[in-house]
């Protein structure tokens, strides 16, 4: 890759975009060269996907210039950008599962006469392309849903190539792939680069970036903070570019004495998700859990609430062995869950604050099947006051509350249940900073009252600020446990990207 002159395929400069009060992009720049693989890295929320969506014509930027193949483009749409030769392989497969490979490759550009589609011609041409580019042979008429994830990626890339793509953007293409498939995907991408195609590779996996990319652009807080050559810059340096240092006073201090173990997980295993997971959370302890998308961290949390049933291992709460096959059992056994998708699973926004808070514990407030409004009101009013939930009155609809207060209602539901274990799945996503601090305070108080808290988060600063200990999951296994001085966002990011493991050297 020592091309004498750099040929710029796409140049985006001074791109800004606001969503309400949130600055998603602020004067961000991105330059994509022909015949080169560009890595794009940054923490969640750094603006990687926003700038890619701007390029894809999905999001309209507030300001900035985009030049594609020497031409300044003003209004981009997903269709027009494809005509310019820029193609996207999105993270979640976007192929029609019931289509054949031929139909998928030529989707939107069908071969045929007038309104008639020649399926046979498409199958033949698709097979040609697959063989020519990738040496891959598939029986004619194979359905997309019968392909492996890696094969689907290849079909998507083939679709782009069939339309003469000159720029190929891949968003986390390796998240669902096994090692061998990753290697062959990389071979494919290198071949495309050598053919002069500009490749953009977005990944959380630092090792992959180091192995594959010719240049890496690092994003932070909605802007690009630098572009480096990964052969000259170490992973640690790249990671420190990704992390902002101004933590401020977001994380309240606390001091608790830890009690007996409340949640004990041993040897937990889920096929295709994770294996050999074991840890304990003690009364009063806040334990963090983190891992990249597809690492298995999410699935661990789902198993703890009975949303998925583990294939093996044991989960104990206060010494009692649990068999968690549904949330019904988890709730009965004292496990509370704050789900990531608050509106789908956390609070019913069309019900009142009162109805939401008492929903999981109605039996406490009822006699022979009938709800006693007096004892319900009493308990609900108490919790509204205790958590200082800002609501006009207990019968106001949750819809009318702010995000942070909705989240408090979700927490109050479990306080009303007197749950012992709190499993939190990204509790501060889409919550403003002020409410975040309140939620952190609340977690501290819960812990202070002897609850065991497991916090799944991809916000590394949050984990460092709030947790006593952080477990990092990498490709289905515990890659490390961090506490004390070793618990910093550099170390967590490195461990979750597979760059380093077990900084503490001790198991949980």
């Amino acid at each position: 890759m020592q091309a004498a002159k750099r040929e710029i395929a796409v140049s985006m400069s001074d791109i800004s975009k606001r969503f309400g009060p949130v600055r998603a992009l602020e004067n961000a720049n991105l330059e994509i060269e022909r015949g080169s693989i560009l890595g794009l890295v940054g923490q969640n929320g750094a603006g990687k996907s926003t700038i890619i969506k701007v390029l894809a014509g999905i999001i309209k930027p507030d300001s900035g210039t985009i030049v594609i193949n020497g031409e300044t483009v003003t209004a981009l749409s997903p269709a027009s950008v494809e005509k310019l030769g820029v193609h996207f392989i999105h993270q979640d497969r976007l192929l029609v599962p019931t289509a054949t490979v031929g139909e998928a490759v030529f989707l939107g550009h069908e071969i045929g006469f007038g309104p008639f589609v020649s399926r046979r011609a498409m199958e033949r041409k698709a097979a040609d392309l697959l063989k020519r580019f990738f040496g891959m042979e598939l029986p004619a008429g194979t359905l997309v849903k019968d392909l492996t994830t890696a094969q689907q990626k290849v079909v998507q890339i083939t679709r782009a190539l069939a339309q003469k793509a000159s720029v190929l953007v891949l968003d986390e293409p390796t998240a669902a792939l096994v090692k061998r498939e990753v290697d062959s995907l990389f071979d494919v991408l290198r071949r495309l680069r050598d053919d002069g195609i500009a490749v953009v590779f977005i990944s959380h996996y630092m090792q992959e970036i180091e192995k594959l990319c010719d240049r890496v652009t690092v994003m932070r807080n909605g802007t690009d903070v630098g572009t480096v050559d990964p052969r000259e810059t170490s992973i640690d340096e790249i990671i420190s570019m990704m992390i902002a240092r101004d933590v401020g006073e977001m994380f309240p201090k606390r001091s608790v004495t830890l009690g007996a173990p409340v949640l004990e997980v041993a040897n937990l295993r889920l096929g295709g998700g994770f294996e050999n997971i074991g840890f304990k959370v003690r009364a009063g302890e806040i334990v963090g859990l983190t891992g990249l998308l597809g690492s298995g961290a999410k699935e661990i949390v789902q198993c703890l609430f009975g949303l998925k049933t583990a294939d093996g291992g044991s989960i104990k709460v206060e010494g009692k062995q649990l068999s968690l096959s549904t949330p019904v059992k988890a709730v009965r056994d004292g496990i509370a869950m704050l789900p990531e998708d608050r509106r789908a699973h956390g609070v019913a926004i069309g019900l009142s604050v009162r109805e939401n808070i008492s929903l999981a514990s109605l039996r406490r407030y009822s006699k022979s099947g009938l709800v006693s409004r007096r004892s319900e009101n009493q308990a609900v009013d108490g919790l509204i006051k205790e958590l200082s939930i800002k609501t006009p009155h207990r019968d106001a609809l949750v819809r009318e509350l702010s995000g942070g207060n909705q989240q408090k209602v979700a927490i109050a539901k479990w306080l009303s249940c007197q749950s012992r274990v709190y499993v939190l799945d990204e509790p501060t996503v889409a919550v403003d900073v002020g409410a975040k601090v309140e939620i952190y305070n609340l977690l501290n108080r819960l812990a202070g009252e002897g609850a065991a808290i497991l916090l799944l988060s991809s916000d590394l600063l949050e984990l460092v600020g709030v947790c006593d200990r952080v477990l990092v999951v990498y490709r289905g296994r515990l890659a490390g446990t961090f506490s004390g001085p070793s618990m910093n966002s550099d170390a967590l990011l490195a461990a979750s990207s597979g760059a380093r493991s077990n900084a503490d050297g001790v198991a949980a």
Partner: protein
Amino acid sequence: MSVSANDSRKVSLRAFLAKYSVLIAFAAIVIFFAVASPTFLTPANLFNVLVNNVVMLAIVALGLTIVISSGGIDLSVGVSVDMASMVFVMLLAAGYSGVVGVGGGLGAALIVGILNAILITRLNISPFLATLGVLFIGQSTQQLATSGGQPIYLTSGYASDQFNAIARTALFGVPTPVILLIVVTVAVHILLHRSVFGRYVQAMGAQPGVAWYSGIRVPRELSMVHVLCALLAGVTGILLSATVKSYVPLSGNAFLLDAIGATFIGTTLSRERKPSVIGTLLGVLLLAIVKNGLLLVGWNFYWQQVGIGVLVFLVLAVSFGLRRATH
């Protein structure tokens, strides 16, 4: 609804209209028919409306109110009505007592409800498609059981007495069907608006994911919902047979659309458009009075349907339109 002082009056009038559009429509319609037809407000006519048009529809609609509250729908209520009616009449025709007949009829409706529950909670078929399938099967079953849809009339003295015992008696001057409706109304009201079960139903209707994540046994509660709805429809089936002294295949279907209409008219009472027992009853009364009134002023059956359609649009549009404007 908090508003600034200067336009509070306009807004509160709108809010009032939005909230009580059903009641206002109801009052307007009663006044209109009272003027247009001299017989409309006579006790005999009102009594007739109540016993023949309100009670049976209301019981079906109350069952459907439970289902719609849970976020589902039951298109097979007519089948439950018919099955109960058919088994009830067949048992009486075969010389069984009224108690056996009622038990058999309710049992037949129960089977429809259980079938719906299994399709929805075990096979995860959407309520709309599951109950639509049961509707088709139920209709054919009736035709197969009655050699192509022949009604069964009962004229023998004994069986007629059994019918009359249900439909034509009165307690303290109140007809038995009306008493039955009062009992059902109170029971469903308590169940839906006061009980733990009712809360679970509302939660499932508002956001099924939240119900599941709150440890509610969603499949079990949903099964209960569908069984209850079918049973209530079965009660109507028995009342229907007792009133007309026969079983006419597929006659239950007439209840389906009216019951859905009544329940949705009733949702205009709530800001969140939630079904309620009171709302549904008002909806039923509105439909019954419009039908009866149009008949009295000389509209034929087909024009009645047009009238009802327009009425439903008006009530819903006025209520929701005004409500949107106040937000």
